[in-house]
C-alpha cells in the first residue's frame, strides 16, 4: 500500500525488484516523545493527567478533612465548608473525592501494568511459536478470553470472593482484560518475526529469548505503550463500575464508591446534585485525558495517521 500524499518519498518500494532509497528513510524516525507531544490532544491529555497525579500525591494538603471523618451532619447540600455536601454517614464528599483519585490512579497503574504484562508474555510466546501446539493453545485461550463478556465475568469473580481489597480488584480486572492486547501483539510479532533482521539475528547466533526480547520487543514499544494506556483506562472504568454495584474495595473510598453511596442514599431525589455530578465528571475527564494520550501513542504505531 502506498499512500501518496502521506510521504513525499513514497516512491516505488515494491517487494521484489524495486528500489528503496528515499530521503525519508534516511532521515529516520523521530523520537517517540516528540511524536506524542506533536499531537495537540495528547498534550492536553498529559497535562490533565499530570494535574490528577499532583492531586493524588498532595491529597492531604488539598482535602479539607480526613476522608473517614464522619462527624458532620449527614446529607448536607453543597456549601463553602462542604463543596460537594456530606454523605449519609456524615463524611465530607469533597475530601472523599480528593482521596479517591489515589484509588483510581493506583488501579489504573497496577491494572494496566498487570494486564499489559500478561498480554505481552502470552502474545509474544504465542506469536513467536506460531504454528506450533504452544501457539494453538495460547491462541485458543486468547480467543476464549476475548469472547467472554468482561464485566459480567469480573462481577461474578468479585462477587464470589469474601475479602475485597484493591489487590483483588486489580487482579481480577487484569486477568479478564488482557486478551485483545495479546492478540494484537501476537499479530505484530508474527509480522516482525518474518522480517529479515530476525533471520539475520539467528544467523548471528542469537538464541530465541534474546531474539524475542532484544531484537523484536524494542520494535513494539509503541504497541505496548498503547496497550498499557488502554488497559489502564479500562481498569479505572471497571473499578468504578464494580464500586457502583457495591463491589468496590472495602478498605478505601473510590469515585465509584461515592456514586454508589449517592445512588443508595437517593441523592437525586433529594436534590443533592453535586454529589452525583462531580465524581462522574472527574472520572470522565481522567479517562478522556488518557484516551487523548492514546491518540498520541497511536501516531507512533500508525504513521498514516500522523499527517493530513
Amino acid at each position: 500500500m502506498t499512500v501518496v500524499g502521506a510521504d513525499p518519498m513514497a516512491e516505488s518500494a515494491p517487494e521484489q525488484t524495486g528500489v528503496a532509497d528515499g530521503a525519508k528513510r534516511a532521515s529516520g524516525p523521530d523520537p517517540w516523545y516528540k511524536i506524542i507531544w506533536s499531537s495537540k490532544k495528547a498534550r492536553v491529555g498529559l497535562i490533565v493527567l499530570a494535574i490528577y497525579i499532583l492531586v493524588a500525591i498532595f491529597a492531604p494538603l488539598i482535602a479539607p478533612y480526613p476522608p473517614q471523618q464522619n462527624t458532620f451532619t449527614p446529607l448536607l447540600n453543597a456549601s463553602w465548608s462542604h463543596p460537594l455536601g456530606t454523605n449519609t454517614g456524615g463524611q465530607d464528599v469533597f475530601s472523599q473525592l480528593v482521596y479517591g483519585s489515589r484509588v483510581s490512579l493506583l488501579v489504573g497503574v497496577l491494572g494496566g501494568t498487570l494486564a499489559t504484562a500478561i498480554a505481552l508474555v502470552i502474545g509474544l510466546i504465542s506469536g513467536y511459536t506460531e504454528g506450533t501446539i504452544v501457539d494453538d493453545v495460547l491462541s485458543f485461550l486468547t480467543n476464549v478470553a476475548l469472547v467472554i463478556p468482561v464485566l459480567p465475568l469480573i462481577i461474578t469473580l468479585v462477587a464470589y470472593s469474601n475479602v475485597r481489597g484493591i489487590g483483588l480488584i486489580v487482579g481480577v480486572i487484569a486477568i479478564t482484560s488482557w486478551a485483545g492486547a495479546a492478540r494484537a501483539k501476537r499479530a505484530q510479532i508474527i509480522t516482525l518475526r518474518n522480517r529479515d533482521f530476525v533471520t539475520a539475528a539467528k544467523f548471528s547466533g542469537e538464541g530465541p529469548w534474546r531474539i524475542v526480547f532484544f531484537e523484536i520487543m524494542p520494535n513494539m514499544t509503541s504497541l505496548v505503550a498503547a496497550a498499557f494506556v488502554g488497559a489502564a483506562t479500562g481498569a479505572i472504568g471497571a473499578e468504578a463500575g464494580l464500586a457502583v454495584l457495591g463491589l468496590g474495595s472495602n478498605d478505601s473510598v473510590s469515585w465509584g464508591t461515592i456514586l454508589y453511596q449517592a445512588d443508595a442514599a437517593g441523592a437525586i431525589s433529594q436534590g443533592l446534585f453535586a454529589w452525583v455530578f462531580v465524581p462522574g465528571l472527574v472520572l470522565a475527564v481522567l479517562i478522556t485525558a488518557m484516551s487523548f494520550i492514546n491518540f498520541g501513542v497511536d501516531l507512533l504505531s500508525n504513521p498514516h495517521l500522523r499527517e493530513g
Partner: protein
Amino acid sequence: MTATVTTTDRAATGGPLLSVERLSVRYEPKRHAPTEAVSDVSFEIRPGEFIGLIGESGSGKTTLGTALLRLLERPGRISAGRIVFDGTDITDLPEDDLRGMRWTEISTVFQSSMNSLNPVLRVDEQFRDVIEYHTRRRGQQVSDRIDTLFDMVLIDRRFQRSYPHELSGGMRQRINLALALAIEPRFVLLDEPTTGLDVVVQKSILDNIRRLQAELGFAVLFISHDIGTVLDLSDRILVMYGGRIVEQQRARDLLADPLHPYTKGLLGSYGDPRAETVTITYVPGRPPDLTAGYTGCAFAPRCPEAIAGCRSVEPPLLRLGEHGGEAACHVAALQRGQGERSGVGTEEVGPVVRGFAGPQFVKTAEDERSLHDREVLLSVDAVSKTYLRRRGLGTTRTEAVRDASFVLRKGAVTALVGQSGSGKSTLARMITGVESPSTGSVTFHGEQGSFAVGSRRGRSLRDYRSHVQMVFQDPYSALNPTKTLGYILSRPLANYRGLRGAEARRAVLELLETVALTPAERYIDRFGYELSGGQRQRVVIARALAVEPELIIADEPIASLDVSIRAEILELLNSLVRDRGVTILYITHDLLSARMIADDVVVLNQGRVVEQGPALEVIRNPQDDYTRLLLDAVPNPTAG
C-alpha cells in the same frame, strides 16, 4: 468539460495532448521541513506518443504522475506551474468538472502493488462500475465490452467472475491494463506497471502494452526506475533526478548520445551478458536529500565530470542535442559551446564521453577461471523437496525441488538462477540447514570433515552457521531499526568468536573497513536507516563476514537496490572472493549479474536443474529454452 479553454483547439494546431508547464509539487508536512518533490518540470506529450519517464527512488517521478492525475493528497500540493490537457487547464479544475475527463480521457495503471483492485468486488463488477458511469452501454453491451477487453489482454473470459485474490500478480496487472483501456482514453499513465513481477511475465506484459498502444493509438507516459525496460518501447525519454528533469531526448538519440552524466550512469549499469567483455558502471553516493536543499546541480556530488560551476550554479534545461535533445548539465552545455546560456561562462571541460566516467566493474572472458580442480565445499545430491499441505480431507503435494544435483567449489561463486517459484529459495533453505530434503542429501565438506546438513535445530544449527552465512535481498528489512551498526556487528563476534569490549569494537571497525564504510568510526554508532541502500547492504555483508564463514549465501542481494548502484555491491562481493577466498552461492533471476560475478551457473526451472556449467559457457551458448527465455528478458539498452 465546462472549464475555460486556454489553448486553441488541438485539431487546428496539431498541438500537444498534454502539456506540463513549470510544474512544482511541494509536500508541506506539519512536523517536518517542506520538500519540493517536483521542481519546475516542463514537457509535452503529443497524441499517440509513448514517453518513458525514468528516475530512481526519491526522484519525484511517482509524485509527478500523481500530480498529473490530480490525485495528490495533503500534505502534497501543486505549488507552481500548470497542467494543460487537450487545451483545458486542469491544474485547479474542480473535481466535479474533472470527473468527466477521468478515465474517458486520462486513465492509469498503478505500480503493481497488487492492490489496485477492490478485494471485495468481483473483477467484472469493477469494469461495469466505470463503463456504466462513463458510457451509455448497459447490460449485455457492457458484458460484450468486458469480453473484448479481456481478449485484448489475453486473459480467459472465465476469470471475469473471479475475485482479485484468486488471480496471479501477472493476471491482475493485465486486468488493470484492460481496465485502463475500458473507455478508450487518449492518455494512459503507467506507473511501474511491471515492477515486482517475474522477468518473463514482465516481458510479456510489456509486449502486450506495445501491441495495444500501436493498435489503439493512445498516448502513454510510462514511469519506471529501470531505463532498460522502457528504452525500446518509448519514442522519447525523460530522465528525472532530484525532482527535476535532467534530460529529455528521443529514445534512440539518448542511447546514441546521452547528454547528462546521470543518464550515462544509468545506461552504464546495463550490459550484454553474452559479450566477450562486459563492463558495467555504477554511480557512487546517494540521491540528494530534498528537505535539506542544495545549491547548484543536485547530481554534482556523485558526478565524475563535475566542474566548479556545478556546485554553485543550478543548470537550466537547455536544448543541446542534434535532434532537439535537452539536458540540464553545465558540462554538456560547455562541451557544446553553450556555457554562457548555462550560466558557467567558459570553464574548462574535457571532451564528450559517451559512457559514464565513474567507477566500473569489468568482466572479460579471460577472467573465467578453471575451477574443476578445486575442492568441493558443499554438494547437493539428487535432492528433492515435497511439501504436503492438508486441504480439507485430502492433501496437496507441491514439489518445490526435484532431483537437483550440483556442487559448490571452494573459493568460487556459483549462481543459482531462476524465477520466483523455481525452487531456488527452497534450495537455499536446505543449504542453510533450516529444512531438510525429502530425498537426497546436502553434504558440507568443511575443515572438520564432511557432514550431512539435514534439518538442524538449536545448538547444531547454530554451529553450522559459523560456516554458512546469509546476505538478504532487502537491506531495509535486514537491519534492526532499533540497533546501531556497532551492536549489530558485535553480536556474531560475541556469539561465535567470543569477542567483547574493546576487542569486539576493534573487530567491528575492521569489518566496516572491509566493506569500505570508511572512516569506520563515523559509522559505528549510526543506525541502519541513516544509510543509503547500498551502504546498508554493505553492513549486511559485513555482518555475514563477522563469523569468518566458508560459505555465504547471497539471496538476490542487488534486486532491491537502485539500478545505478547495483554494480557497486557486485564488485564488493567479487573482491571478497578474490581476497578472502570465501565461497558464494549467488541466488538471482538476472543473468547479467550472474555473468558478472559467477564462475558457475545453475539454472533452475520449476524445481528442476535445467542447465549447469561454467558461467560463460551457459550464457553464451545456452542449451535449454528456459535459459534462452531468461537471457531474452535481460534488459539491454546498449544492444539497440
